[in-house]
């Protein structure tokens, strides 16, 4: 290092620092750009009809996304119903029983890998599993696809959060004679409550913006959802079909729906973050 002059080393250092600050700024800039566009264009579409009318057929003016809102709520609700209990129990296995076992290691690795499998593959899988045999798209299939996407997120956060609970708590409960299931569900879960809730919020945030897994499972519909066995309207696929259409009216609707999705996903994410931070200060 002696042969390089101090001034040059300092200059390179300053250059690199400036570049990395610029990179961070670029990231912030993109986030701001996307959000501003979505808010600007989306708010132009918001009206009374937007929230309380169903999607209008081609050629008819106006219309809203009420049926898609209802359909998305049904899909996410069902997915929570399937995904959360299985994810929680799988996380319990990883943290409490399979910590050092070979099965535990394999499951942990697969959960990590499953988290990165493209969501369109999940949709394709559910299509071959539930849509091909029954011969029709359905809300069930869509919810199963979303639940599969939730599962690894919940399992991993559950494991992480349960591991933060000190062992002394488990030991003292067991010393009082409480059975293992009661220790886990009644005491460890209660101690990790905030963390578990955070994981669920993040998982719900992840699936509520998903489009690809719904394309071939519950598809979309212009009508109100009436049966869980039929194609079901949902926000994201509605955005996809409307945004790709050549009609300005339909594109405006898509921007409105995009605003709703973006705001709810960001709200879920931010509240999860705040909850976790509030906890770490205690």
């Amino acid at each position, binding site marked *: 290092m002696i042969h390089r002059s101090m001034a040059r080393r300092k200059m390179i250092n300053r250059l690199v620092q400036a570049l990395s600050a610029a*990179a961070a700024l670029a990231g912030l800039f993109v986030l701001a750009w996307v959000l501003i*566009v979505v808010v600007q264009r989306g708010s132009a579409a918001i009206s009374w009809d937007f929230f309380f009318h169903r999607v209008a057929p081609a050629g008819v003016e106006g219309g809203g996304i009420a049926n898609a809102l209802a359909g998305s709520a049904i899909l996410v609700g069902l997915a929570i119903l399937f995904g959360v209990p299985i994810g*929680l129990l799988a996380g319990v296995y990883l943290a409490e029983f399979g910590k050092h076992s070979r099965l535990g290691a394999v499951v942990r690795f697969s959960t990590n*890998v499953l988290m990165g499998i493209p969501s369109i593959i999940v949709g394709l899988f559910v299509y071959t599993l539930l849509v091909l045999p029954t011969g029709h798209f359905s809300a069930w299939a869509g919810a199963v696809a979303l639940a599969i996407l939730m599962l690894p997120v919940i399992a991993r956060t559950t494991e992480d959060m349960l591991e933060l609970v000190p062992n002394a708590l488990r030991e003292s409960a067991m010393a009082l004679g409480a059975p293992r299931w009661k220790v886990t569900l009644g005491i460890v879960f209660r101690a990790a409550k905030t963390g578990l809730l955070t994981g669920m919020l993040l998982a719900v945030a992840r699936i509520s913006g998903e489009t690809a897994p719904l394309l071939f499972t519950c598809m979309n519909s212009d009508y109100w959802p009436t049966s869980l066995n039929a194609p079901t309207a949902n926000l994201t696929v509605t955005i996809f079909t409307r945004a790709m259409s050549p009609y300005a009216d339909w594109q405006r609707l898509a921007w409105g729906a995009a605003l709703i999705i973006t705001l709810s996903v960001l709200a879920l994410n931010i509240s999860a973050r705040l909850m976790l931070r509030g906890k770490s200060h205690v």
Partner: protein
Amino acid sequence: MPETGKPAGKQRNADRVFQWMTALCAGIVLLLMAGFFVRLLLSSRLSLAHFGWRFLISNEWNPYRGEFGALSSLYGTLVSTAIAMIIAVPLSLAIALFLVEMAGPRVRRIVGSAIELLAAIPSIIFGMWGLFIFAPFAAKYLQPALGKSLGFLPLFKGPPMGVGILTAGFILALMILPFISAVMRDVFQMVPAVVKESAYGMGATTWEVTRKITVRYGIRGLVGACFLGLGRAVGETMAVTFVIGNRHDVSASLFAAGNSIASTLANEFTEASEPLYLSSLVELGLILFILSLALQVMAHYWLRSLSRSMGAGL
């Protein structure tokens, strides 16, 4: 509270049932992984038998004649992913460096969370922004500039249309940036402070410490982060579908429209009525599954080997 009322045997049974239930739910994860492979393989056997290896190298995609080949989709997937990596990896490295070595705790928290929020924005929103805002911007400013300065390369020839493989690569870069930079930040933070401080004590500058200490120490984690980003990029669907142009063609120019495996699936799956057509699309999905599986396995292998050598979890 001692459970005096119940005999010990009953309690032990309840515990055993509970443990089995959790193991069963954990097993579902394994079952799913196997299920993906088996179901996709079974549903694509028609196309596998009909085309064989030719499927991978044929550029023919003609539903009317029943000829299907994956080449253009594979090409689009690989090229758009490569563009994304070329842009995203240096940017992520710079952002991670900024967060760990330069920013104060307040700035670090705010900028770090903002970058993470970028990852939370749904793919379809990026797609709409890309199609309606970024693609026209690219057609007007970015692509003409590239054509003027680098137009002697076949890569940057052709009319600037906005949508195309280059734009898809750009949008992908923005989408994987937060994932890569978050993991890189964690890797940087795992480097023991003592090691860095001794280098600083020798008079090294921040950049020298980064290049010679931090990066060397965490190289396996950085590689893992890149593979994680790659795994995300190859399977990204909606954003790419919006901006890639959706044309079954292999073109030397990055300005040209193309398609990727995921965008072909998203566009054509519900239209496929012929069994062979459907089966070919599922085979595309199978290829994508194997590709992203391999990338994920490699990513976690590298990350795990790093955290094992450092004795900390990542």
